[in-house]
């Protein structure tokens, strides 16, 4: 197993290197002059004289040749030092770290909720295939998948914050402020999870080893728990990991609507402000996270599915 992970990391490191170089190149390809963008963000005005801009360029070391900057950057990036934000001049790592914590909470809350609803709902629907619960679950999950969160979020604010006043409408203060954004984010994955859970549970229920387990006198419930769930969860876990990685950096819209200081907004504002170190560190963090989540999923897979475990061990 460690060997398989090692090899995987070797390939991933290569992929990461490619991604980071592309990321590094970003500010040099676009029409936007990052220095000017930065200057505007710092001084809050559009008309900045050339001298100021030049001074800033020097301050940021952006006058040096490209490759020097990249190598410089790479060297420190490897040690976890992504430099200071052009804007706040604080270490980028701190910003990314704090945003990451927020994103992890939000993502886990929403996906955890989606998962917690989807797994039982999908399983029960699969068990009572064709029944009214199944029909309801199927229709709802299909509908959920089609609800854009940028429509759901304002509506939920309207109802729960403005009319009912139960929950804060925005911000990131305490557990209650997690609820609305997490809810708005959870609906679509919930739909997908439920559908996949249902389908894979049906598959598993139709698989021969379930019949064999029944033939040993196991009750439906016991069979389901001992032999069904584990097998049926595998595809849901894959999906979970994909959403997890996607939401950690990709919940931009929700983070904007709910003023959540997460990764999505951090990177978004870094893009808008041309804050290259933050952008680079943010993207590298997202890619790295994707890798980590992938690996964790693989591990989860190996725990759940011994076929993979042994294959990897012998590979």
């Amino acid at each position: 197993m460690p060997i398989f992970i090692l090899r995987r990391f070797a390939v991933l490191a290569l992929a990461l290197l490619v991604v980071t170089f592309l990321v590094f190149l970003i500010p040099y390809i676009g029409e936007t002059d990052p220095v000017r963008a930065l200057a505007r963000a710092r001084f809050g005005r559009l008309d900045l004289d050339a001298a100021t801009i030049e001074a800033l360029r020097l301050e940021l070391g952006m006058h040096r040749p490209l490759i020097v900057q990249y190598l410089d950057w790479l060297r420190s990036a490897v040690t976890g030092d992504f430099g200071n934000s052009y804007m706040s001049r604080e270490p980028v790592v701190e910003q990314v770290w704090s945003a990451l914590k927020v994103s992890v909470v939000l993502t886990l809350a929403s996906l955890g909720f989606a998962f917690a609803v989807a797994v039982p709902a999908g399983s029960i629907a699969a068990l009572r295939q064709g029944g009214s619960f199944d029909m309801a679950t199927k229709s709802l999950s299909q509908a959920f998948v089609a609800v854009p969160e940028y429509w759901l979020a304002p509506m939920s604010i309207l109802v729960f914050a403005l009319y009912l006043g139960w929950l804060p409408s925005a911000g990131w203060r305490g557990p209650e402020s997690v609820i609305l954004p997490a809810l708005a984010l959870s609906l679509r994955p919930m739909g997908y999870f439920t559908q996949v859970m249902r389908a894979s549970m049906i598959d598993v229920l139709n698989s021969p080893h379930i019949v064999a387990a029944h033939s040993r006198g196991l009750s439906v419930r016991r069979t389901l728990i001992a032999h069904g769930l584990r097998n049926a969860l595998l595809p849901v876990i894959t999906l979970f990991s994909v959403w997890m990685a996607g939401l950690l950096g990709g919940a931009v819209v929700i983070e904007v609507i709910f003023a959540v200081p997460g990764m999505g907004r951090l990177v978004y504002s870094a893009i808008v402000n041309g804050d290259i170190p933050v952008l680079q560190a943010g993207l590298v963090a997202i890619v790295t996270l994707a890798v980590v989540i992938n690996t964790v999923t693989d591990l989860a897979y190996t725990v759940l599915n011994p076929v993979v475990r042994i294959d990897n061990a012998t590979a």
Partner: protein
Amino acid sequence: MAVETRTVPHAAGPILRITDAMKYYPLRGGLLRRSRQVRSVDGISLAVAKGESLGLVGESGCGKSTLARLILGMSSLTSGHIDIDGIDVSSAGGSERKRLRRTVQLVFQDPFSALDPRMTIGRSLYAPLSQNRIGTRPERLQRIIRALDDVGLDSSFINRFPSQCSGGQLQRVVIARALLLEPQVLVCDEPTSALDSSMRSQILNLLASLKKRYDLTLVVISHDLRVVHYLCDRVAVMYLGRIVEVAESEELFANPLHPYTRSLINASMLEEKGLEGCAMARGEPPSPIAPPPGCSFHPRCPIARPECSRALPELIATSDGHQVRCPYHAAESEESDPARRADMAAVGAG
């Protein structure tokens, strides 16, 4: 078992010659781990004369299908040579390869997966003709109808999808397709093991009659000894990638020499020998990744001696055309004490 006698056309030279063929599949090695190999075919030499039919028997995983793939040039040899009608299979390219296609063909084990479920049978049969640029359109159609007729199907099958046919019918289609290119050698990889006993008889009849009609050279792979017995002139017994015994069909079944061959034959004679008499080999075939040293059968062999684990015995010729890879086969036949055999069988059953 009553078997009719057949004349073996030895006169013609070998059309298929396999010389010391080896096929090792590498297992994916880790970064730090020494990579290992599956020794699927581990040094096989055989010659098949034109018009002859050779049976290849052995347990699952012993490398029968791999050998078939090698003969058809579908995978490359690790070492050795395979020569069909003067074509070196491993180095054949371009036009040589084209000729090879028209010299040797394969009949698959599972007829359901040997045909594209999305193509009508007509299209499946048309493709090899058009791809090999044989004939004009009407000619090709004629040929397809004739091939179907050969295998006892009418032309209405042209418009059917595989899912609309039974297994036996599909196996006939697969045979018809293999015969379209008029090959001289037909390799049949377990042609009947997916079929019912009555279907099996039909297909075996068909193969036998086609062989006669087109003077085909057959290589029949099977683990059903009776199939081989019926269809083949000569039989080679394989164990873990190696040939352990080759003989004329009659000779082999009447006088099996290698202990493995005997246990195989015994095992398939449930009816005659009863439960106690049939199980000779103990345990199960070992993995071809780490075959036992020396004679690979020795861990299961009822007459194994300490020397067996030391060196790989040579294939020795006994009588005319009978070869066996066991120096002690003669010793065993003296020891045909039934009590001992029963003991061994009990051990074999655990």
